[in-house]
């Protein structure tokens, strides 16, 4: 029908060329030669001046990786990845190592400015509330290709006892903590991409919140892939001791390039008794063009361990980028009465493929988990929710609620829901709800009749669809996520 076709065309017009973060930056780089072997692993470790135990760990991971095979169960398709055709280390060349932001390459600062990421700390005046519309201060760790280039508000955080620094730095400044927790949630041999990451991980953020401390500000890391033919393998480790609290956000972008780029990150979270970790992601890696050329392959392992009683880990993700997303942020609910949450919006347009979801492993008694997944597919994209809720024998009174909603834009895209529920405890209760809907032409017309442009109408309807997830984001980022959705869907949602 005519109306439908027009909607599709409009969507297409909006989608193409819609990526606004696609510029690249000319920075002098220190690069490892292409390819992966033991020597490269040694070189990475050496460049970072790592202690012997860490090199050992990397080499073991590398050996494990060699014996593993790329997983093939996800509903994604791509040409074989040539792991020997990548650079495994790329870092901006430092003259003598910057002591302050003033010594950082101005091109780099300019790039982060362009991305809207404040690397310069705004002076915070004691007792002055941020004005309406102004962001409260957020501590930022900026990771450019493989290396952390700046971390802000370190002093303020240190006063509160919070450690927030590049993991490469934590290896030196807090070796015992890193040694104790690294790989304790995602073991080196957990899966193919985690093993690869463990062998070659470059940098990432380390967060430690000591007993009873509520982190005084949002922490955030911005990842940026810039170099060509480089894999990015960051590693994030967040540990919150008894009664502590942290809210952490990661954002990601990459330049627009014709070739695919590999991103295989690992994130480990540890929450002890009464600790809470809120981990939010706004992922906007370059998704490739309208024909599916280029874009990031995002193969990420994220897992949180609720080790202590009444601990809580909450994952919130808004995923609009990447050519392929393979990602299942999970919670291991070990402590009694611990809580796991997963709130997700995954948008796919053009030829993007997303296979994403979560795993909730209930081990402790009265553990509770909530899963709210909103998949939006447009263009010729494919969007799969894959979830596992496993209730172990001793998890008396465990509860899970799962809601999976799919929104289709146009009729050339796909949405799939693959929920597994395994319960080994008869007192456990699980609930699952799923819906699939379309943006109806009459909804668009209704909005336009009231004066909204087609694009604003799509944005409004999509944001309405995602409301339950967006409200979980820290407030100052929810607004950005809404804009991001509107932008990526403007093009993709007609």
């Amino acid at each position, binding site marked *: *029908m*005519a109306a439908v076709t027009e909607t599709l065309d409009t969507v297409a017009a909006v989608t193409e060329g819609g990526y606004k973060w696609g510029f690249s930056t000319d920075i002098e780089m220190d690069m490892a030669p292409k390819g992966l072997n033991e020597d490269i692993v040694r070189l990475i470790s050496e460049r970072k001046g790592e202690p012997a135990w860490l090199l050992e760990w990397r080499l073991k991971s590398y050996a494990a990786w060699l014996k593993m095979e790329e997983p093939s169960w996800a509903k994604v398709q791509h040409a074989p990845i040539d792991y020997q055709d990548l650079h495994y280390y790329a870092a901006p060349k430092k003259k003598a190592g910057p002591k302050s932001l003033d010594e950082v390459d101005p091109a780099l600062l300019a790039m982060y400015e362009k991305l809207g990421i404040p690397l310069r700390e705004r002076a915070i005046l004691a007792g002055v509330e941020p004005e309406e519309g102004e962001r409260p201060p957020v501590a930022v760790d900026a990771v450019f290709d493989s290396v952390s280039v700046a971390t802000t508000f370190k002093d303020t955080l240190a006063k509160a006892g919070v450690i927030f620094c590049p993991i490469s730095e934590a290896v030196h400044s807090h070796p015992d903590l890193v040694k104790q927790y690294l790989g304790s949630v995602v073991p080196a041999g957990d899966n193919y991409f985690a093993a690869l990451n463990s062998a070659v991980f470059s940098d990432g953020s380390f967060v430690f919140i000591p007993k009873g401390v509520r982190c005084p500000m949002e922490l955030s890391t911005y990842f940026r892939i810039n170099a060509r033919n480089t894999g990015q393998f960051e590693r994030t480790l967040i540990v919150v001791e008894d009664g502590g609290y942290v809210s952490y956000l990661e954002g990601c972008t990459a330049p627009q390039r014709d070739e695919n780029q590999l991103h295989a990150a690992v994130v480990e979270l540890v929450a002890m008794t009464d600790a809470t970790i809120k981990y939010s992601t706004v992922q906007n890696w370059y998704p490739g063009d309208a024909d599916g050329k280029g874009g990031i392959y995002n193969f990420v392992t994220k897992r949180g361990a609720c080790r202590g009683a009444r601990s809580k880990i909450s994952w919130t993700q808004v995923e609009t980028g990447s050519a392929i997303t393979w990602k299942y942020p999970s919670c291991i609910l070990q402590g009694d009465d611990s809580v796991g949450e997963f709130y997700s919006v995954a948008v796919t347009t053009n030829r993007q493929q997303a296979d994403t979801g979560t795993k909730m492993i209930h081990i402790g008694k009265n553990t509770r988990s909530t899963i709210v997944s909103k998949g939006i597919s447009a263009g010729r994209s494919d969007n799969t929710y894959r979830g596992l809720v496993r209730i172990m024998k001793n998890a008396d009174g465990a509860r899970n609620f799962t809601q999976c909603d799919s929104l289709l834009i146009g009729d050339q895209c796909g949405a799939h829901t693959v929920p597994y529920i395994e319960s080994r405890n008869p007192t456990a209760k699980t609930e699952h709800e799923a819906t699939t809907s379309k943006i109806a*032409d009459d909804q668009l017309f209704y909005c336009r*009749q009231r*004066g*909204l442009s087609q694009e*604003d109408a799509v944005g*409004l309807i999509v944001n*309405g669809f995602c409301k339950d997830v967006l409200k979980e984001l820290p407030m100052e980022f929810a607004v950005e996520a809404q804009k991001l959705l509107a932008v990526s869907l403007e093009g993709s949602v007609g």
Partner: protein
Amino acid sequence: MLEIKGLRAGIEDKEILKGIDLVVPTGEVHAIMGPNGSGKSTLSYVLSGRDGYEVTGGSATFDGADLLEMEPEVRAAAGLFLAFQYPVELPGVGNANFLRTALNAQRRARGEAELDAVQFLKMARAEIKRLSMADDMLKRNVNVGFSGGEKKRNEVLQMAILRPKLAILDETDSGLDIDALKIVADGVNALRSPTFSALVITHYQRLLDYIVPDRVHVLAGGRIIRSGGPELAHELEANGYAAVVAEAA
């Protein structure tokens, strides 16, 4: 002034409007009555620019501007409002957010200053009070879980807030209890002014007791077959359409 001349339009290969001639001078309220399936809603959709209708002849202008050339949102910003016969649900979209976004989009298009959240809420709450509607109307999601009557009231609230120059009400009185009927009438009457006009589509003379029209038109088989003063509505109420249709044939 709304001026429709020889308007022909249809859907796929089916012609529904077969040459409509209708003039609504600025400041007047006209009623359109007519049997089911005669093309009343089609006319309202064609005037407001819904996709899927093909205009095969004639013209429609509003204050001299060619309506049929404009995108729906441009017509809205020009002052055209349609109260839908079947209002649409927007899950997760709050009424207040929806209306403020819409109002500001219109104001932007007209080069007027936008309203901030505080200004908007103040104005919207005043309209709600004036129309004796429930306070939670603004908090609820657009039409989601609304009863049939509540949806119609919400259309009237939207009209009151957007303050159009030309309102088309498509059976906004259908399914309403007598109190709600008065609310709808109040909504229209409050806007009545020398610069406002309205096209009120209805099946019931009753509504026209509250909104007294300047003219009444009978639409049948895709044409206006008779026009008259308010007394025409009474005649239709008493005798039905059959006599008028037969007379016109």
